Every structure is written in structure tokens, then in C-alpha cells.
């Protein structure tokens, strides 16, 4: 049953929410979500790459020979990642410094290759576009929320691009920041608990 464009878009927001439902792309999910800002930045960068690569791969799907399709996907994805990296260096340098090695690592993010292989090379341009955008936004939201939870518990406050901050200490003055949450093992535990919660909610 063919899905509508809206369905292709919205499936990435819940049914196929990348880190929680597909359990893909966990390396950056664990690595960069020390703050909400980092999570969102990484998510947006991935969304851009996913959106671009999905469109291009979908456009070229009749041209690409199936034997070398992975190589072609990698070339396309890597190009977009490099573009994002350069753009981030040029316009959001502090974020680029924080995300560091995880930006070039978008190339090996399973979500990108996964979507290319499972979706873009089999569907037309418009639905690939909707798919890439939906999955990307879902990924951004997931990373953002994970980052927000970890930052809130670990620092006691959430800061996004210098403002729009919420301070837990203002509501609970005696709150002591739970620094474990912004450390690496905290990422695993937080992600695990969120997975647990999302599975409990179900479809």
C-alpha cells in the first residue's frame, strides 16, 4: 500500500524514530548529547545530509549500477558531510569545535546509509525527500531531548544558543547537579531509560 507524502514524513517522528525505534546512529547519539545545543546541532547537520543525499540518490537511482551502489552512496553522503563541515566551520564555528570529530563521522552514521539503501534507492524523489526530512527531524528531536535531559540533570540548567534557558535550580534551589549524567556512562544509562520509556509507550 503506497503511503502518502505526509505519512512518509510523519513515520520518522514516531514509528521509525531513528535512535529509539530503529536503534541506529547510536555513536553520535551517545557522544554529542552532553547538552541540548550539541544534540540539536548534530541533528540539524544530519538532517541536512540526509535530506540532500536522499534526494540525490533517489534522482540517480536508475543510473547507479547495483553492484557499486554502496560506493556511490558513500561518495554522495561524504560530499554532503564535507559541505556541512565546511559550512559549519564558516558560520557556526563554536558548535563545530564542540561536535568535533562527530561531524565527519556522520558519513558512517548507519541512518544515512540505511535510508539510502532501504528507501531512497527504491522510491521517487518526492517521497525520498519527505522520508529524509522526517527521519532527520525525528533524529534531531530525539538528540535534542536526550541532550536536554542530560544537560538538565547534569548541569541543572538548559541553554540553547546563549539564551532560552531553563534553570532547574530556580525551581528547586537545593538541587545539586548530577554530573554523572553528562559523563559518558550517564549517556548509556539515560539512553537506555529513554528506550525503555519509548518501548513502554509503544505504538
Amino acid at each position, binding site marked *: 500500500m503506497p503511503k502518502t507524502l505526509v505519512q512518509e514524513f510523519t513515520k520518522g517522528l514516531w514509528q521509525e524514530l531513528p535512535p529509539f525505534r530503529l536503534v541506529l546512529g547510536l555513536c553520535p547519539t551517545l557522544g554529542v548529547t552532553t547538552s541540548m545545543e550539541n544534540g540539536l546541532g548534530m541533528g540539524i547537520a544530519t538532517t541536512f545530509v540526509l535530506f540532500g543525499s536522499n534526494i540525490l540518490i533517489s534522482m*540517480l537511482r536508475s543510473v547507479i549500477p547495483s*553492484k*557499486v551502489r554502496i560506493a556511490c552512496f558513500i561518495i554522495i553522503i561524504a560530499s554532503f558531510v564535507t*559541505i556541512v563541515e565546511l559550512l559549519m566551520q564558516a558560520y557556526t*564555528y563554536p558548535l563545530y569545535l564542540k561536535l568535533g570529530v562527530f561531524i565527519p563521522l556522520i558519513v558512517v552514521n548507519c541512518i544515512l546509509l540505511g535510508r539510502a539503501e532501504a528507501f531512497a534507492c527504491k522510491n521517487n524523489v518526492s517521497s525520498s525527500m519527505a522520508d529524509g526530512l522526517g527521519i532527520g527531524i525525528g533524529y534531531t528531536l530525539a538528540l535534542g531531548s536526550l541532550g536536554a535531559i542530560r544537560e538538565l540533570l547534569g548541569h541543572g540548567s538548559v541553554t540553547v544558543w546563549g539564551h532560552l534557558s531553563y534553570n532547574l535550580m530556580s525551581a528547586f534551589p537545593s538541587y545539586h547537579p548530577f554530573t554523572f549524567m553528562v559523563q559518558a556512562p550517564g549517556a548509556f544509562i539515560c539512553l537506555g531509560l529513554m528506550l525503555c520509556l519509548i518501548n513502554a509507550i509503544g505504538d
Partner: protein
Amino acid sequence: MNEMVKMVVVLTVLSAAAGGVLAAVNKGTASQIKDQQLRFVKGPAIETILAGSSINPIENRFEIKEGDAEKSIFVGKFDGKANTIAFEEFGKGFGGDIGVMVGVNMDTDKLVGTAVTVHSETPGMGARAKDDPSFVSQFKGLPVANPVSVTKDGGQITAISGATITSRAVCAAVDKAMQAYQKMKPELQQEIKKVGK
């Protein structure tokens, strides 16, 4: 056979196209990236050294060839006179190169300040060179003619406790900067006039 040819052609074209696009993007963003790097990596150091400058030192910079390397010179303007410059030198630290931004007043030939830009020293030990201003502030006001060194080597700089290697590296970087400054001085005076206008 046909498929083989197709594979080769597609891959080649795709790679070439990707290369072309990337080259274009790279070219388009190069100056902006350089700008950003200077602002965010060296910016804080320059700002502490040239605090109170009436012009933006990063925008008002020029390049000078010193030996093989090209140096970026940042210019600060105080009391209407563009007489202070800052540039970066490197010293060998415990965990690799330490970048030190050195500011010199060209009228008095004295250091106006130093600040560490990049380093990979041990947190809590050598990293204090950057975090703790009391160490770098010792350089302020020293004349460029005299070489600097830590007290252990008979100099005038008190080393950071527990981080002699880092302290020596910073001193070496400042020393290098002083020598380079003396060598470059005529050229600098030429260039700085343009900025002063």
C-alpha cells in the same frame, strides 16, 4: 562488459562531480572559515592582550613573511595610534605544541601581554598556563631585548608549580616571539602605517 563500463563511468562522473562541488564550496567558504578560526581560537587571547583597542585587531590584520612561514599580525590602536601588535609563536610543551599570543608595543619595545591560545597539557597541571592569569601576567612590561626564562634556569619568571615543562615552553615561545619581532621590526613599521591610516 557493458555493465562494467557503466560502473566505471558512473563512479568516475560521480566522483568528479563531487570533487568539483567540494572544491567550489571550499573556495567559497575559505575566507570565512579563516575569519572564524581567528575569532574563536585566537580571538580570546588577542582580546585579552589588546583590550581597549579602538579598532578590531582581527579585521585589521596583515601577513608578513618570516623565513618560510607567513605570520598573521594583529594590530591594536590605542589613543588614536596604531602602535601595538600581537602575533602567535609556539613552544614545545608536555603534550605537544603550545601556542602563545604575544603583544608588543612598538613604541616602547616592551611586551604588553601574553596569552596561551592552544595547548594539550594535563588538566589541572600544565593547563593552568591558560586558565590561571597570574602566570602569563609576569611577562607584561618586559623589554623585548632581554631573553626570558624560568627562575630554575636563572631567569625571572616563576614557573607554575608542578608544570616546569609547560612553563619553559611558554617562555621559549615568548623568547622566539621577541627575536622574531626584532627581526621583523622594519617590515612591521612599514605595514603598520597602512593600518594607522
